[in-house]
């Protein structure tokens, strides 16, 4: 069964590869950061599969950190893309 789980993890790496193609193509920075977000979710799934395949619960902690910090790059991006680089897209225009 471990080998099967590892095989599925390899399949999810293909989804990471698809995300990399979107990072390459863009066209906007928003597209690229969205692809990074999607790759993050795939990475979490890969780690959980590795945890089950290796019967090593400590790997779940790696997935936990990645899930906890999953939004950070995108948050930094929306902040830097706002009008003064420090704001939030939901603020009313000044």
């Amino acid at each position: 069964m471990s080998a099967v789980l590892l095989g599925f993890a390899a399949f999810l790496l293909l989804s990471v590869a698809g995300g990399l193609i979107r990072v390459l193509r863009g066209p906007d920075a928003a597209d690229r950061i969205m692809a990074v977000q999607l790759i993050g979710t795939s990475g979490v799934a890969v780690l959980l599969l590795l945890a089950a395949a290796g019967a090593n619960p400590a790997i779940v902690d790696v997935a936990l950190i990645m899930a906890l910090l999953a939004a950070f790059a995108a948050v930094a991006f929306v902040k830097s893309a706002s009008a003064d680089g420090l704001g939030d897209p939901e603020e009313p225009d000044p």
Partner: protein
Amino acid sequence: MTPALVFDGLLALLAVAAAMAAIGGRDLFGSVAFFIVYGLLIAIAWVRLDAIDVALAEAAIGAGLTGILLISALARVERTASSGESGEGGRLAKIAAALLCAGVAGALAWAALALDPQGAGLTPLISEALPQAGVGNPVTAVLLNFRAYDTLLESIVLLFALVAVWSLADDGNWGGLPGLRQHARSDGVLATFGRLLPPFGLVVAVYLVWAGSENPGGAFQGGTVLAAIWLLVAMAGITELPRVSSLPLRAALVFGPAFFLAVGAIGALAGTFLGLAPAAAKAIILAVEAGLTLSIAATLALLVAGSPQRTQG
């Protein structure tokens, strides 16, 4: 072809591709995005190398701090500087550079293949000494007992880096507030996220430090998570990072290294600098780790926030 080999081969291929795209790309934001993905793939590689402690550190830094650091630095540089990459060498120079770098990589590859495949490294020595170390996680034992010198000096290096970053401030802003004022709509999605996540982050960080004595985890991983969460709260406009001259902040920054040094000095009185008596080792290591977690979190957060840029909030 076993599934393990397929997985590892694909993973290595993707990591190399992401690194090449980050280095060779045309769009700088794309390069940064590729680099963030690269960090994630390397974290998975550490898991495959059975180095969960390293994977935890790489995940915390790659997913959390690197993204904030690089994306905000890129935005600031693009606002102030011309974006052209001037003065890159001609085709011939690039080919020469590529050949040279391929040579270095080839030499390293040769070195890896020439190693004795049965080499055991320091593993047997560490397993032998582990019962006296006070903790069951051999990596924590190396960091805080066997090679505590390295860890102590590293925590001091972090402080020096922070002082260097602060020293880049304009004269008028010395001792002021790091970075510029961040703001967000107070009832918006970002602010809500900034309020919901910290409780989870605190629990995860404390858990990582606590688990680090017997399982993968420790002060560096926990401290990095705390730093990332603190920066998120600041970015969501909920709190401001403190003035760099603030006494509580400076106390938090030096507490960990100072306490570590004091423990080392007590050890010196008993015979060996940084020597830990096996009976007391666990309690001492946990106390030093708690102090280091606090100081590492404060230092990393302020390092990423940058030099003081204003004196009024």
